[in-house]
Every structure is written in C-alpha cells, then in structure tokens.
C-alpha cells in the first residue's frame, strides 16, 4: 500500500501526499517510508533525494502572529514561482488526545496548486512540534516543494528543538513582551536566525527592537537581524522574505549512508515489535527469569537481542 502511495506521490497526486503525511505523523510505516525516500542507487550522490527545500521555522508565543505572518509571506514566495508547503503545529490535549487545529484559516483560502497547508497536532513535551517531522519534510521535498514553512505551537523560552528541522529559525516577538532581562536568558533567542518584532504598529515596538538588538550584540557569535513587521499596517514583509532567503541554510542534510542506516534502524524496531507480539515462548521465559532476578539487566538485554536477531 505504501508503494502504491509513493507511486502516486511521485506522479504529483496531492491526495497521496496528504495520506502519507498522516501516516508519517502517526508513526505508521516509518521504516518503509524511510526506505522509499532513499535516493536511488544510481542517484545523485550523498545529498539525499534530489529536491531540497528551504525549511523556515516560525516560533514565538501564542497570539504573536505566526500564522498570520505566514499567510502574508505565501504570496511573496509564489511571486517567485516557488512552491510552498506549510506545516502548522497546534497542541494536542494531554487529557483527551483531541486538538483544535486553528492556524490555516489565517493563511488565506487559496486553491493554488503551488501551496500545500497541513495542520498537525503536537503532543506536549516535544518542543512545540509534531512528531516525525524529518520524514514529513522529506515527503514534501520529494513532492517538489521549494520552501517549507514550519509553524511551531505557540511556544516559550526553551523550545529549541525547532532548530534541528529547519534551515532558518524566525522568532516572533511583540512589543511590551518583558523587560530587557528577558532577552538575556538562554534558549530560543540564541537559536533565532532572524528576530521579527511583529505588530510593530503598536507602541513600544522601537524599544523592544532595541532591547533585542542590544541583547544579541552582547553575544560573540550571533548577529541575527532584527526586523520590524506589521501585518496590520502591511509593512516589512518583503524585506523579511528577502532576509530569510539570503540567510545561510543551517540544516544538515543527511548523507545517503545515514538515511539508509536510519531506514534500517526503523525497520529493525518494527520487526522486533512484530516478534514481541507473537508471544514467543523463549522470550517469555527470558523475561520471567529476569523478573525473578536470575539474570542481570544487561545480560537479559543481550540474550533478548540475540533471540530477536535470530527471529527477524
């Protein structure tokens, strides 16, 4: 079934893309997907699959205007004839598993084939991001998107995982969001490649921009640009998009060998799970012996791996 979906994906069928993104987000068939996303052996060297998108993450607290800003940037990307996908994360309830995914309605209601917007639920404790984003991003790249906007859950000072998945991290702040010591704290501000003072039509925007700049200037390594953008007054978007485009791409592209290894690792996990579900007598015996204290934990793990390796 995965193979058929991948055939359709490569033919540009967006329903297949949407279905594969769902499966990846749920952690289904990850091994098979990793394998299908591997570059062909005849392929393009060590750089992974041909198309490589620029992944731009937008982070900042809830209500700062991440979705709205993305909605304003989409037309600028399309003007350059680049195809853009958006992954918009919103929190999933730790109590019910439910989620209200309410970002996309702020991003316009385009039916443009060059725009794909997908809402994803993020469990808490995951850096404000949905799971398996690496696979989802590769699916979008394989489909042919040039730019991927990644919107985090409205997030706080320490949600820095976003750096792993993106080439550029754009941090949104708004006027009146704390005194100057707020900007001295370690965490997300250190990870930002560009800082956007959004809602800069509001009073206090100049002061906030100055405080952020002052804090960034104190650090040795970092000179992230600080830009003022107002969606209400419709200013700063073009400059922001230009800035994002010329920032260096930070994301480490995995080598083909690394991708192969990752695919094997995921497949191994799935196969071990399958063996475990067969309630194998030898495995049960081993677990019982360990529970009774007859074997040490490292010994039990080694024996377990030996048995599993024989079974798969």
């Amino acid at each position, binding site marked *: *079934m995965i193979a*058929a*979906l991948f055939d359709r994906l490569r033919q540009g069928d*967006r*329903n297949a893309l*949407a*279905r594969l*993104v*769902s499966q990846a987000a*749920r952690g289904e068939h990850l091994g098979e997907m990793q394998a299908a996303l591997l570059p062909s052996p005849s392929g393009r060297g060590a750089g992974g699959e041909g198309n490589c998108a620029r992944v731009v993450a937008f982070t900042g607290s809830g209500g700062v205007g991440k979705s709205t800003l993305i909605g304003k940037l989409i037309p600028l990307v399309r003007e350059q004839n680049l195809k853009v996908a958006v992954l918009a994360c919103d929190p*999933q*309830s730790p109590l*019910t*598993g*439910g*989620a*209200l*995914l*309410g970002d*996309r*309605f*702020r991003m316009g*209601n*385009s*039916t443009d084939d060059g725009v*794909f*917007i*997908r*809402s994803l*639920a993020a469990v808490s404790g995951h850096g404000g991001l949905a799971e398996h984003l690496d696979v989802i991003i590769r699916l979008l790249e394989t489909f042919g998107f040039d730019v991927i906007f990644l919107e985090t859950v409205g997030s706080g000072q320490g949600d820095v995982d976003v750096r792993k998945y993106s080439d550029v991290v754009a941090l949104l702040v708004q006027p009146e969001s704390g005194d100057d010591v707020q900007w001295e704290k370690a965490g997300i501000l250190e990870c930002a490649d560009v800082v956007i003072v959004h809602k800069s039509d509001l009073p206090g925007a100049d002061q906030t921009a100055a405080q952020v700049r002052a804090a960034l200037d104190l650090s040795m390594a970092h000179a992230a640009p600080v830009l003022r953008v107002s969606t209400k007054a419709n200013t700063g978007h073009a400059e922001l998009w230009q800035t994002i485009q010329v920032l260096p791409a930070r994301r480490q592209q995995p080598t083909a060998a690394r991708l192969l290894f990752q695919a094997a690792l995921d497949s191994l996990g799935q196969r071990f799970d399958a063996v475990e579900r067969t309630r194998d007598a030898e495995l049960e015996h081993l677990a019982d012996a360990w529970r009774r204290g007859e074997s040490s934990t490292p010994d039990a793990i080694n024996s377990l791996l030996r048995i599993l390796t024989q079974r798969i």
Partner: protein
Amino acid sequence: MDQPQRIVLAKVGLDGHDRGIKVVARALRDAGMHVIYAGLWQTPEAVVRTVADEDADWLGLSLLSGAHMTLVPRVMELLKQAGLADTGVLVGGIIPEADMPKLHDLGVAKIFGPGTSLDDIVSFVQKPRERTP
C-alpha cells in the same frame, strides 16, 4: 490505539454566524478528535482543497444562510472530482425539512439541525468509517 479522526469544519458562502460551529468544534476536540477549523467565508473550492491537504475523514459544513441548495451540491461535486468522495459530509444549521432528502441523495451523511445535542454529533462521528486507501 485508535487514531484520532480528522474533521474539517468550515462555513461556506457569505454567512458570518460562527458561534454554532465553534461550539461543535470544541465538543469534537474534547471527544478526542483532531478538528481543523477552516473558518468563515470559504468557497467550495477552498473547502475541498482543505479536505484534500488535511487528509480529513470528515467535513462538517455549517450553513445558516439559506444557500445550502447551491453550496452543498457544489461541494459534493468538487469532492467527487478531487477523488475524495469517501469523505463523510455533515451539514449543520438551518436546513428546511423539504431539502433534507435532496441533500441525503447527494451523499450527505447526516444533517444536524437546531436543538441537536452535542452528544449526538460526537457519537455519530465516532463510529468507525471505511476509507479507500
């Protein structure tokens, strides 16, 4: 574990009354569903594109404007064209009884009128659905 179902909730056409759809969105969220709120003033084309990109199991349309016999058939036709005929379509709002059979004939799974309890809506969408792979 059962995976949460995904439902797109949208209002099509020129109808700005969104209290009802927001209440339904909250009830479905609290029932453990993933609710994609697509908002007001959507065109049928944009709604169908949202259903496609979001890989939704269900589409809930709220109509209080009286334009349901124009907009719902259009949405159903576009879903079919987009290869999404297996989406479960729900309609909520003010739908005269005389129009209900026509909407059901078009493939609408269920119509929820004024006074429907949230429990009825939740239990209807929690029934497992078969979708084409």
